[in-house]
């Protein structure tokens, strides 16, 4: 762990409840400058919720999230805007504006937050699109490109303002193995070369082990394991081993009943679930 000075992100005692169900239950960790933190865990374990708390689009029930030393959970919209200009975010779907072209999408933060001339912006857009391997795609609409390409445009847009910090939600899902490697190399280049810090939510274990300097595994609303990739790989925790090896058999069961599922994942119970189950299965 290369902890030089103050952490860039400081999450402490974070709790988020939906009703009486705690999706995030007392999570604390720090991210230091130049680190690449990979957050992993099964579907519905609260990875995306955690990410949304870090970017300030969700407010926690209790606890604190500090980014660049500033508390984001109590900020008003204008203050949070100031912090958000310093980081980029890649959404799982890319989240490109469908009414704009690829080039306009990448140019959007530049037009909104810098005084650059249109020519300079065009240059930056070209350069960022080249970084993600999409030279010459400026004039296409998001509907005209594939899902993987959208994601790469989303990455180019997240990098448009040369952020100090990058959040990625599943950056490599939907990409072919070659493009996954390209995106991973880009992340490595940015974190090693430009001292960018990255927080990546990922399911893709190959990619995760390639880029991570530290990993956190979430489960049951809390942190199951954390450490360097080597520590995670040699973790004695059977849940971690099952997850990184991708085995169907293990402590995380394949078939869950409603109650078991709630116990494992804290997923909101559906109303009348039991009645519906009895109706369909005609149990005595």
């Amino acid at each position, binding site marked *: 762990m290369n902890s030089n000075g103050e952490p860039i992100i400081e999450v402490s005692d974070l709790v988020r409840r939906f009703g009486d169900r705690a999706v995030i239950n007392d999570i604390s960790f720090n991210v230091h400058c130049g680190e690449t933190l990979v957050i992993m865990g099964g579907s519905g374990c609260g990875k995306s919720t955690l990410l949304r708390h870090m970017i300030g689009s969700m407010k926690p029930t209790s606890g604190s999230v500090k980014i660049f030393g500033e508390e984001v959970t109590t900020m008003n*919209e204008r203050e949070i805007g*100031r912090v958000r200009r310093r980081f980029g975010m890649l*959404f799982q*779907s890319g*989240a490109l*504006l469908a009414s704009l072209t690829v080039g306009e999408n990448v140019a959007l*933060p530049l037009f909104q*937050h810098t005084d650059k001339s249109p020519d300079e912006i065009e240059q930056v857009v070209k350069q960022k699109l080249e970084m993600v391997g999409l030279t010459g795609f400026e004039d296409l609409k998001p509907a005209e490109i594939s899902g993987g390409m959208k994601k790469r445009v989303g990455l180019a847009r997240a990098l448009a303002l040369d952020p100090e910090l990058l959040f990625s939600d599943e950056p490599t899902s939907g990409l072919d193995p070659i493009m996954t490697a390209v995106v991973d190399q880009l992340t490595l280049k940015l974190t090693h070369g430009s001292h960018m810090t990255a927080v990546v939510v990922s399911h893709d274990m190959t990619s995760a082990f390639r880029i991570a300097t530290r990993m956190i595994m979430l489960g049951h609303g809390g942190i199951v394991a954390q450490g360097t990739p080597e520590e995670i790989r040699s973790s004695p925790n059977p849940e971690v081993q099952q997850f990184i090896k991708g085995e169907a058999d293990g402590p995380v069961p394949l078939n869950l009943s409603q109650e078991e599922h709630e116990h494992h994942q804290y997923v909101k119970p559906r109303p009348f679930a039991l009645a519906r189950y009895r109706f369909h299965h005609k149990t005595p």
Partner: protein
Amino acid sequence: MKNYLQLNLSLLYWILIAPFTGQFFKIAPIFRQMVFIGVRAAPMVALTAFSVGVTLAMQAAHSLQSLGAEMYIPDLVMLTLLREMGPVLIAVIVIGRSGSAVAAELGTMKVSEEIEALEVMAINPVQYLVVPRFLAMLVMLPALTIFGNYIGILGGWAVCRFALDFNTAGYVLRALQSADTWDLYSGMIKSGVFAWIVITIACNAGLHVEGGAEGVGQATTGSVVQALLAMLVMNAVLTGIFFFSA
């Protein structure tokens, strides 16, 4: 309702206060929206207004002829169009065409995380998406109403000229004599108020969509129904204030 009031307040902030703090809204998107909301609705507005003008003239002829008062047909067409039918019917067309499109567009952006992406890029969705649509609607609905009034009067003329014993000059003179500038202005005020109601309801519905494609559909339908009701009730209130209270 709370969301709706919040949207209105934040809209006023971005239009009236933010420009003085150096956050001026961009002009180009307003023109783009004016084309979409206004110019492209013009053919539908023209057809509607023409039909209404023709209908009004025929109904007026039917009733007034029996009293021997055909000369008042232009008066009736003109006043009805300027004061009531013009603003209301054109608002109905714009609600159905542009209001629903705005609700569906913003709703789709909401469910595909585009609005959240804007927020995370520190771009305020109200400033970026709602302000241009609002200003475009505020300009285009009254403009369409004036345009529709002209076409409606043309419809009335067509009936009077070709089916009754009017000549063109007689129709125009009679129509102009009957109407006061206040008749036009009251219609314009109404259509400005309708523009406000229609676009804020549509944007509010779009920005608060939940639950995927189904949610977008519900929000769109909901926005059309709410905008129609609010517009018609507001029309009754304004008519009461303008023509009944004095």
